[in-house]
């Protein structure tokens, strides 16, 4: 089989294969361990029953939903009281409720957010809220 205009064809194919296999060759020799969001803040260690507002799995996939619902409820409706499914009462507040336990933004929030490639501005909590001061 004769290939006409071989140099263009080969160059094009090499470029195509190079681009298509980018995920393969760009990962060679790179360790990419799973992030471990730290749950060792003093407030969490003092808790008897280590339980967040929702279950762990629900929080993992749905925390953004919960925060969005809280924000709408607080900002638009002025409600501040959230009753969890287990009957516990929470104050709907990022800074006073969530961050009371999870005071370690960089090692909790950012650990996973940067792993899944969210730009720093995307969880746009911190365009209004003040990020906590961390001692490290």
């Amino acid at each position: 089989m004769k290939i006409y205009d071989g140099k263009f064809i080969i160059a094009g194919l090499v470029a195509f294969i190079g681009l298509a296999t980018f995920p393969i060759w760009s990962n060679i020799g790179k360790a990419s361990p799973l992030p471990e969001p730290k749950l060792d803040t003093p407030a969490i260690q003092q808790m008897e029953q280590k339980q967040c507002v929702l279950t762990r799995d629900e929080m993992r996939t749905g925390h953004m939903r919960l925060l969005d619902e809280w924000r709408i409820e607080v900002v638009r409706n002025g409600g501040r009281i959230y009753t969890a499914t287990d009957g516990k009462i929470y104050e709907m507040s990022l800074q006073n409720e969530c961050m009371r336990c999870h005071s370690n933004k960089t090692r909790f929030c950012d650990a996973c957010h940067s792993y899944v490639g969210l730009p720093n501005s995307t969880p746009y909590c911190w365009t209004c809220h003040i990020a906590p001061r961390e001692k490290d």
Partner: protein
Amino acid sequence: MNFIMSLVAVLALVLTAFLGIEAAGLRTFFSMAVPYVAFTLFIAGTVYRVLAWASSPVPFRIPTTAGQQKTFPWIKRNRFDNPANKKEVLGRMILEVLLFRSLFRNTKAEIEKGPKLYYQWEKWLWVGGLALHYSFLVILLRHLRFFTEPVPFFVQALGGMDSFLQVGLPGIYISDSVFMLAVIYLLVRRLIIPTVRYISLPGDYFPLILMLAIGVTGILTRYFTRVDLLKVKQLALGLAKFQSSAPEQVGTIFYIHLLLVCTLIAYFPFSKLMHAGGIFLSPTRNLPNDSRIRRHVNPWDYPVEVQTYAEYEERFREKMIEAGLPVAKEIAAGGPAVYPLTKK
């Protein structure tokens, strides 16, 4: 009928993934085997297709021209619609690949009362096509965040720009909305315009319905049923590094999305989608119109043995004189021979 066939095919794929995960529990098969097979088919099929195209000779210039050819210097010519050299062809190709220029010329012919034939400016196909291709590109690049660690800056920035409207959490991507609108438009267009519907084959409907299903499942995984992204990324990185990363429990909707995407890339080289490679190899676009500027010799002309008239006469002179035919050069006669039909 063609539409129903394609719809059934896509629904069968969805059902395959659903039953494969829910009933048979074939997680490793759907998350490891299928993507590797699909990716191999994609690369090998594309290379095969391009090489097969490249083995067809294109000895003569056959560009479709749509403008004034290069001629006298005082006649205005059209560089992009009638390129005369490789540089102008490059310009034509870049505009074609990036802006779909020939689709921009699309017109609609209609016979109305009179009877009169009307040609109308028809840009919606071009707009829909551009929207589909560019939103698909953005979506494809955004997905690199699952295949790279650390995530490159441009992927992060793209995700940030794409969700900058800050609608809801997780933020709605502009490219997702544009993609869905464009796919729906292109599908509806095929279905409701009678002339377009008449020429639509299963191969036209299937990719559109498949992309629609990919969009729907992708949107479901992100905004509605939601999956654990850490596990998804672990799986994607495991694929890229050829490490089996024991796929854990990820929602079934994710596996449906994955199987549909694998189908799309495996189907790619064997379908109309291969226009992505074909556009670069279109002789009607990638050749300069220099038929009359350069001499083009057919490279596969059969080597025919030719005999000049002088040689012919040399061979048959005696017989020609015997038969009384005129000859250019008498036997043993001096002086210059005058052959007919020979160039000086």
